[in-house]
């Protein structure tokens, strides 16, 4: 099994550009999450989803949007990229609430 797959691995954006970070899981998990990781700040929850068609905000949702049209996919959209969005982004999934998270390998994003 591939597990949780994130693309791209690296990306450089100019201020004001937009992009979509892709996340796909092949474990039929209901729960999916997007986190950003900044040095010394740990992981901050951006958005999460408990199933197809259901999404909700996390701790730091501003500047981001998500959709969950299928169980497998949970893309994260950045509109009008800003330097403050420079970070490492992780997608994660779990089968049921409280089960362990399976993480993707991360996307390193720089906004210049």
């Amino acid at each position, binding site marked *: 099994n591939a597990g*949780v797959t994130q693309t791209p691995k690296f990306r450089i954006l100019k201020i004001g550009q937009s992009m979509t970070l892709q996340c796909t899981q092949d474990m039929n998990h209901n*729960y999916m*999450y997007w*986190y950003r990781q900044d040095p*010394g*700040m*740990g*992981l*901050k*929850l951006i958005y*999460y989803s*408990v199933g197809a068609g259901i999404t*909700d905000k*996390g*701790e730091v949702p501003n500047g981001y949007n998500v959709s969950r049209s299928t169980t497998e996919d949970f893309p994260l959209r950045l509109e009008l990229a800003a330097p403050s969005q420079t970070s490492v982004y*992780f997608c*994660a999934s*779990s089968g049921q*609430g*409280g089960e*362990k*998270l399976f*993480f*993707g*390998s*991360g996307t390193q994003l720089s906004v210049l």
Partner: protein
Amino acid sequence: AQSVTQLDSQVPVFEEAPVELRCNYSSSVSVYLFWYVQYPNQGLQLLLKYLSGSTLVKGINGFEAEFNKSQTSFHLRKPSVHISDTAEYFCAVIDLTSGTYKYIFGTGTRLKVLA
């Protein structure tokens, strides 16, 4: 809102010495607690979890943690560390009273094992 505090940002320790990484969470009636480890340039991996039952939880690689409800703590311990334990460790909590399953992570503790 639920929060997690890891007071130690870095912990240096000599090889074969014991280590304790501290984690405290804000008060809640019912929580799930986790420790994850992140090796360089990788995603996070589960070390251990507390859902219910025995307050002493054993995980992989010789780590264990103790749930202390009165002190709202979930400290991670290992009696003898190895060089390969050098990594960043994250404590995480799910607040069951919120009705969601949002994982909230602490800021992490970087464990550096010295030869």
